[in-house]
């Protein structure tokens, strides 16, 4: 099982990787042996090595999402050994290192599983449902004009900190992948509460939460049952408090907004 590899010796691993030609095709787990993996490698570098091997053997390389490879873009995904972004808490897959595994380990690698995240190919999923939730209200409408002076709008430090924490969501979708209900509440709550807490976001506060929740339901995500797997697996540590705040915002907006 996943553990620390103290002696930085190269490792031999067995990989079980989900292979699926396209969104229509049925997929299966394929088994590959991989040799001489340095514990210093990131998980995605290990995947690169696998793909080089596969290319040499004339096998189609495994498609997986990635971009920045430094934990900020939210593109990487992967359900590794039963956990979103792998066994280490608070890390994206690109920041997960092979020293978390041991020589001889078998690693099962699957795509995010949720109806609203259809598999495009192998480990790549279409996560644009999250974009559409964001587009439904995750913005503020301001007229462009002169830049306001810094600190012109007073915001208490603790509120600024909480809003900033919510704003760190990188939209990776691990919360949905880890949730038994395939719920996107942690994601949506981070986006809603970030803006609900700040003066600039207060103008569209009620309509925003109504529209974003409606879009979330429309995309087919599940309902939250406060299990908490999402926050436990979130690579940036978005807190469950945001979900309570989303509930509060939604209940308040439903009963008091002008939208009938």
């Amino acid at each position, binding site marked *: 099982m996943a553990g620390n590899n103290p002696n930085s010796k190269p490792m031999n691993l067995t990989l079980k990787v989900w292979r699926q030609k396209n969104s229509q095709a049925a997929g299966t787990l394929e088994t590959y042996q991989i040799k001489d993996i340095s514990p210093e490698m990131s998980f995605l570098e290990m995947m690169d090595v696998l793909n080089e091997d596969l290319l040499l053997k004339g096998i189609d390389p495994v498609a997986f999402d990635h971009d920045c490879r430094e934990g900020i873009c939210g593109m990487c995904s992967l359900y590794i050994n039963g956990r979103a972004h792998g066994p280490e808490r608070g890390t994206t897959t690109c920041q997960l290192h092979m020293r978390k595994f041991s020589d001889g380990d078998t690693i099962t690698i699957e795509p995010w*599983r949720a*109806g609203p995240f259809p598999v495009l190919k192998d480990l790549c999923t279409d996560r644009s449902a999250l974009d559409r939730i964001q587009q439904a209200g995750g913005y503020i409408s301001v007229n462009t004009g002169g830049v306001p002076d810094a600190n012109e709008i007073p915001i208490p430090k603790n509120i600024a900190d909480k809003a900033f924490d919510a704003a760190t969501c990188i939209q990776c979708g691990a919360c949905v992948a880890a949730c038994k209900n395939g719920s996107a509440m942690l994601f949506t709550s981070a986006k809603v509460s970030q803006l609900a807490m700040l003066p600039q976001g207060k103008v569209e506060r009620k309509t925003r939460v109504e529209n974003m929740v409606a879009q979330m339901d429309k995309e087919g995500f599940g309902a939250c*049952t406060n299990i908490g797997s999402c926050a436990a697996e979130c690579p940036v540590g978005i807190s469950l408090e945001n979900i*309570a*705040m989303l509930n509060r915002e939604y209940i308040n907006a439903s009963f008091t907004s002008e939208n009938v």
Partner: protein
Amino acid sequence: MSWFSKTFSSSIGRKLVVAVTGLFLCSFLVVHLIGNLQLFKSDGGASFNIYSHFMATNPIIRTMEIVLLLGFVFHIYQSLYLNRKNNSVRKVPYAYNRPQDNSNWSSRSMGLLGTVILLFLIIHLYNFFWRARFGEPNMIDIEGTGYDDLYSVVVQSFQLWWYVLIYVVAQIALGLHLYHGFSSAFHTLGLNHKKYTPAIQKFGAFFSIVVPAGFASMPLYFFIQGLLN
């Protein structure tokens, strides 16, 4: 769709109904438990029979009974609706999944625990409620007034080991249901605060142990008493 039906057919709106009815059912549990403590009075069941008679005839209680029934209906309908929908979101299951690394079993099993409670409720209502309300009364005399002797029905029922077992298992399910459910309901209502949330969680854990233990103590008490006699 009107704003009202839109709200209550949204995922959060439905969950709101589950939370409000869930907390209402918790208040019912407290009343029910305190009332049933009359069973422990060693007066040959007189207080319990008088209490049961009051519960079956008082108009306020009879009205609350309908509210309670509606509470159960809404709680069960909305929670099972959400449960079914949630189970259909992940069309392809994970080949390898380790939810135990990120969450509690009880919070993931609310549907199962609720179903166990529901099955228990059916048995429980059939045997006691139905018997008390529509069964042939077995009148006894307490201080000159005739009462249906429900106390004896209770005592008789709890002589059967498998009947006691059903009760104990159901109370364990209820405890686990509330271990997650009590504090979860406050979260659903958006009531989260640095000052109060830790206290709510502690009280929820306390509640989820004490209330089911109180209920389970009754069948166990009469069963053990039966063994000793």
